[in-house]
Structure formats: C-alpha cells, structure tokens
C-alpha cells in the first residue's frame, strides 16, 4: 500500500442499479426475511437438540429479557405493539405450562416451534434493511452536495464562498490504499468490509466512501438507537443499513441476526460491519473483535463451497479499513466511559449522546466547517482465512504460492461442515484483521505528540498507577519543550523503522522538520474540544488541559511496543 493519497473520480463498477445485489435483495425482501426467519428457527432447534423442554426454557428466558427491556429501557423506535406481542407470547407459554402434563412430546414441540417461528419472523422483519434506490440516490446527492457546500463555506473566504468548488470532499477525506483492487474484487466476488470504529460519524463516512469508489451500496449493521432519530433513520435506510439492537441479547435474536448476515453474503450482497462491535472507547485500535458477525463470513463461504460455487463468484473477500482522525468529537465521553469501566466502577449505562437531531447537526456543522482532515486507508483484501488475494481473487500463501480457500473446508476430499473448526477459523481471522488494522494505521502528527507527551508524564510519575496519574492536577504538569522535542524525535525514528518493516503507515506531513511536525500535531490534536489535550503555553512549555483526553489520543499508538522507548 502506498502512502500517496488518491484523488480521482471512479466510475461506478455496476452502472445499472438493477444489477446491484442490494437492489435484488430489496426486491425479494419478503422472501428473504422469511428465509432468514426459517434459518434461524432451524439453528435454534438444532441448538436445543429438538428437545421441547429446553426450547421452552429458551423461550421463557427470551420472554423475560424482552419484558425487562420494554420496562427498563424503552426506545422511540420500538414498535407500538411490542408490549402486546410479548404479552401474547407470555399467555401462550403459560397455557403450555398448564397443559404440560397432558401433552405429548410432539405436541409440545409443535407449540414451542410455532411460538419460536413468530419470534424469529418478528426479529427478521425488524432487522431487515429497507433499501430504496430513489432514497439512496437522493441521500448521496444531499451528502455530497451539502457537505461540499459546508466545506467551501468554511474554507473559502468571501461572498463567493457558497458557490465555490475550490475544495471537494476528497480534500477533506483522503482515501488511500488498495482502492483499485477493491473495485476489481467487488465485480467478481462478495466484499465484507471491516473498518475500525472511533466515531459515530464512521457509518456515514464509510457509506460515502463506498459511493465515491463507484461501488454499489453495501448493507451494514447499524445500532438501532441511531434509528431513534427520524432524519438519521432515513439516511441509514437509504444507505442500506440493517438494524442491530444491542439491548437484545437473547439467543433467538442473535441467531436471526447471524442468519441475516450470512444469507445476505451468500447472495453476493457486499456487507460492512464494525468488527470491534462498538466505538473504541479507549481510543486504541481494536485488538479484540466481536466474533459473532465475523463468523458469519466464514459460514457463508463454506455454504457457497458446499453448493459448488468454488469459483471466484462465490468467494468472500475481507477488506480491513482503518480510519484516522486528528479529532474525535465524542472523545471526552468515550474515554470517560472507558475509564469508569476499566476502573472497576460497577454501574454502567449505555449512553446515547447522539440522542437529538440538534446535537447531530451541531456535530456535523462543527465537523465540516473546521479543519482537521480524515484519512481512510483501504487495506489489502484477504480471503476468510486471512490470506492475501490477488486482483483476480486468488489466495496466496506467505511465499506467494496460489492456494485454494476451499481446501480449508475439506476433510477426506469433501467440503464438510464442522462448527468447532469454523469457530477456530473465526479466531484466526479476527487476529489477522487486528494485524492488518495495525499495519494500515496511518500515523498523524497529532498521534505522535499525544503519545510522547503522555508517556513522558507517566515516566515522570513512575510510582503511580494509571488512575492516579490521570487524577494529577493538570496545572501541575508541564513538559520542557527541548526534552519533548527529543522524545518526539525518538518516537518518530522508531515509527520510520516500523514503516520500513511494513508494520505501519505514515501521513506525508510527517516528512517535515521536527519542529513543524510538533507544531502541526499540537494544532490538530483534539482541536475542537473545549479543553485541549495538548498545547504550548506562553512560556513555550508543553502543557495539557485535560489528561484523560490526552490519554485517549495517546492510545492510538498502543500496540507497537513504542512505550519501550521511555
């Protein structure tokens, strides 16, 4: 992957919208939802070993959790009949218990299955995306046009600013990496894009990137809480989002969600999910992934091979994407959550800081009118076992020899299903994605200054644990500029060594003089927070206004053993 930033127009790879897999999916929505509900019902029957008592217990647990959810944590987006539906389930289960003794095993099974069927159907219907092509087109135009106007209004001075086309979105959001390979592979097989996740903005950002690259829309899982807000719901639906409700942790829901993801991939629909599951609270690049959805990629790949789709059209490609910011708007609340969690505070509630349209518009205006660039690094595509693939979609081993991905699913000459094996493969793929995230990470000046400053502060307070350091009064901390500069030099040199070894990437602005890099970093690191994580005071010393925030931005360079320099 080069560091060069790619700025050009990409032609759509599939100009006819009817060819888009996502359009085909939405045309057959009804049949697809039914198939998903059936598949998850079958998965659950298998999990409970076709035992009516076990199944009934599972249903009762689900009912209990759903009633708790409705009572304790209701959201605007919840359907009106939620209460009525679960009450219905309850009365049927109660009746079943009452008649338990007089029913035969087959009767019990039939009654439990019919309840389960209704539940999975309801879930599948809720999860399924509502993609509409007209909405997609409109949204794409609003996003591109609206954001470009905002951007120019902010950057070009004078009366003409509103009509200026001097800057386009691609000046603000830089796309680097294997974009051509991605476009080629998207024509041949199915793409599963897995980006890092730091900000709520990522969902829209990635949707826009996909459209800029000329790719047909991807489906992706978006938190149901985002659908609480009507305008957001419109955008999300238009971009092909399906809904993931983090409150529902019951087995039927999770199975339905997995079936949805897996079956969409089997149909060749490109998908996207954030493998970290949620925004990185600590500011670190994800090192532990949520394996549930990742496993669906492996399952879908095996199913394709079982059905004899052994050529590239049935192949699934994993494309890691790293998103880099100088500034994450939600940083203060994210790091607070992270610290209260790791700091052993028992109570924690899912916060929803994107709760009102007003807050979002404020965020967007702030984001697009202020400087602070973003870069999106598209990594090399891999097969579902984490082997790199060629532009033709052939998998390569470490020595560059072509290998068949289907061989991974074979035993005794046949493709077979082995859930335990696939579980191990999922771990393996997860590790490979984390590795690729670290390789594709693009270091910014702001990351380096934050990392260096925090490490120096920690070193100066060696005897304290992390939480004590974070409680230090900010006004007592100041770093001598000379020593700081020297340390930045050391970190930078090490990053260059890592880069030479192919373990990380650097933004071009790091090729300047050290003083210029530091100035650039200080200007940019968390630039629009009310309290700046790092600044240079009047006396020329390096000081901080918010240690926790500094810690957040510092975390971005964790995982490279750079702390050994201190």
């Amino acid at each position, binding site marked *: 992957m080069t560091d060069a930033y790619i700025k050009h127009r990409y032609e759509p790879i599939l100009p006819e919208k009817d060819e888009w897999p996502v359009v085909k999916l939405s045309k057959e929505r009804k049949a697809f939802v039914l198939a998903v509900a059936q598949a998850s019902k079958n998965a659950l029957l298998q999990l409970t070993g076709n035992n009516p008592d076990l199944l009934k217990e599972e249903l009762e647990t689900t009912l209990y959790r759903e009633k708790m959810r409705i009572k304790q944590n209701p959201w605007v987006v919840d359907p009106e009949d939620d209460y009525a539906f679960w009450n219905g389930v309850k009365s049927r289960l109660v009746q079943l218990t009452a008649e338990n003794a007089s029913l035969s095993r087959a009767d019990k099974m039939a009654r439990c299955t019919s309840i389960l069927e209704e539940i999975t159907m309801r879930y599948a219907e809720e999860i399924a995306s509502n993609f509409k092509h007209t909405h997609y087109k409109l949204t794409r135009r609003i996003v591109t046009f609206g954001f470009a106007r905002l951007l120019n209004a902010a950057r070009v001075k004078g009366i003409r600013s509103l009509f200026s086309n001097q800057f386009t979105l691609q000046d603000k959001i830089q796309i680097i990496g294997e974009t051509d390979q991605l476009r080629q592979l998207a024509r041949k097989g199915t793409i599963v894009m897995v980006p890092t996740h730091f900000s709520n903005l990522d969902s829209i950002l990635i949707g826009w990137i996909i459209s800029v690259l000329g790719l047909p829309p991807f489906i992706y899982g978006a938190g149901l809480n985002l659908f609480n807000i009507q305008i957001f719901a419109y955008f999300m639906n238009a971009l092909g989002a399906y809904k993931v409700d983090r409150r529902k942790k019951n087995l039927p829901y999770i199975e339905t969600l997995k079936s949805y993801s897996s079956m969409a991939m089997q149909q060749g629909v490109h998908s996207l999910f954030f493998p970290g599951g949620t925004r990185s609270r600590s500011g670190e690049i994800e090192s532990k992934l949520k394996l549930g959805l990742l496993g669906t990629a492996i399952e879908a790949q095996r199913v394709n091979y079982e059905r004899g789709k052994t050529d590239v059209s049935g192949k699934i490609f994993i494309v890691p994407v790293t998103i880099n910011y100088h500034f994450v708007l939600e940083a203060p609340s994210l790091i607070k959550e992270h610290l209260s969690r790791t700091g052993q505070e028992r109570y924690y509630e899912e916060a929803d800081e994107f709760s009102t349209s007003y807050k979002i518009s404020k965020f967007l205006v702030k984001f697009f009118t202020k400087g602070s660039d973003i870069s999106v690094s598209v990594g090399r595509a891999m097969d579902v076992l984490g082997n790199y693939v060629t532009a033709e979609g052939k998998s390569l081993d470490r020595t560059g020899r072509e290998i068949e991905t289907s061989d991974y699913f074979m035993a*005794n000459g046949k493709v077979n299903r082995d859930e335990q094996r696939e579980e191990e493969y999922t771990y393996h793929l997860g590790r490979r994605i984390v590795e690729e995230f670290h390789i594709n990470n693009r270091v910014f000046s702001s990351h380096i200054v934050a990392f260096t400053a925090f490490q120096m502060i920690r070193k100066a307070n060696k005897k304290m644990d992390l939480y004590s350091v974070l409680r230090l009064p900010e006004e007592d901390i100041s770093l001598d500029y000379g020593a700081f500069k020297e340390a930045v030099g050391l970190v930078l040199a090490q990053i260059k060594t890592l880069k030479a070894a192919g373990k990380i990437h650097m933004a071009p602005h790091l090729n300047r003089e050290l003083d210029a890099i530091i100035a650039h970093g200080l200007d940019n690191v968390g630039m629009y927070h009310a309290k700046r994580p790092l600044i240079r005071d009047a006396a020329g010393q390096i000081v901080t206004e918010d240690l926790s925030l500094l810690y957040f931005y510092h975390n971005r360079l964790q995982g490279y053993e750079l702390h050994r320099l201190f």
Partner: protein
Amino acid sequence: MNSTGSSKSKPVGVIGMGSFGTAIANNLAEKTEVLAYVRRPEVVEQINSQHLNGSLSVHPEVKATQDIEGICRRCETLFFMVPSAAFTEVTRAFAPFLHPYHRIIHGTKGLALNLPPGENLKEISKIKRSQIRTMSEVILEETVVIRVGCLAGPNLARELMAGKPAATVIASKYNEVILEGQRLLRSDKFQVYGNADIIGVELSGVLKNIIAIAAGASKGWGWAKMRAAC
C-alpha cells in the same frame, strides 16, 4: 483437490523414521497403508526389501520413500516425527507441497529458536517467548497447514514396539484432528486421549525432561527414593 473417497483408503504419512517414528508407523500400519519419508537412501532400500530399519523391525504395510511431493499428494494426514534440531528444515522442505486440507500431527519434543539473521544464542542475555517456537508454531508459520496437532505422552519407543500397553495424548485446537488421530492410532493396547491445549501439551513434553535429568542424576548418585519421588 481432485481426489475422492474417504481417508480410509488413503495412506498416512510418517515423516522421519527414528525409533519413535518407526514405532508410530508400525502402530498406524495395523489399520492403514503408511508412506514413510526417510532421509537416507540406504534406509529406504532396507525398509522396503527387508522390513527392517537398522535393528528395528518394520511393519510390511510401511512403504519408505524420499518423494516429498508424492507423500503430500497421496496423504491427507501426516505425522511429523523429526528431531527438533532438524524440524524447521524438514518442515520447509515439505512446505511447497502442502495444502490447507492437510492435517499434521507432530510427535517431536523440543523447541526451535527463532532468531533474526545475524543473531545467535550467545549474544542474547535473556530469551523471550517471541524468540522461541514450539513445533506446532513452526508448522503454522512455515506452511499453509492450519489443522495441526501434537502427539505427546510417556511413550518409550521400545515398549511401544514390544506391544506393551501405553497411553498418549493428541492435542489440537481442532476436534477433527484429535478424532482422526484417535481413529488412526487407538488400539486395545494404546489409549489415545484428546486435549485442546496444544501449546500446554508441547511445553509439558519439553519441560518434563528437566525433571527427568534431575531424576537420572539422582539415580546416578544412588538416591533411588528421591528419584521415585520425582
């Protein structure tokens, strides 16, 4: 892969015919055809014509060969029974012919040093975990095979050859590898257990030898009781 049919009709590969390798090959040959990779040409000849490996007798179902590619093509399951000093080298020789459908179970006790070029053991004051690889890690890093297992246990080649009862463990993250190993090796006199902690089993196989050395030393000094306690 074009081959069809079950592995029952496929031969099993044994790489390395030391005393333990020969014992395992003989055991496997009770149930299946065995292809054995031998480094020295005269041993190939001796095994194939006289069914002898040095002074050890070899089951007639064991065919010796030096054709690495042929073994990899015909076998799906391979037992690597190579001494740890040669393990990396032999694994590299096999790597170009291995595919993701292969399963490798190794029976080697030992660790491999993994130093960057230009460094050697004498210059390093402290050995880190990253500088050491267990045999399964060598296989995972040098080849494309992912379904790897390890065979370890209190097995003495001589006793196995004599048909004395013994037990062993096959450790692998993959159930299918354990099951296949058990299917191939288990007999009335040879119990095969399964375990998921492959690194743990490999390390125990190596580290117990430190105690064995102490036990041997105490025997030499005539402290028989202490040796028994070890």
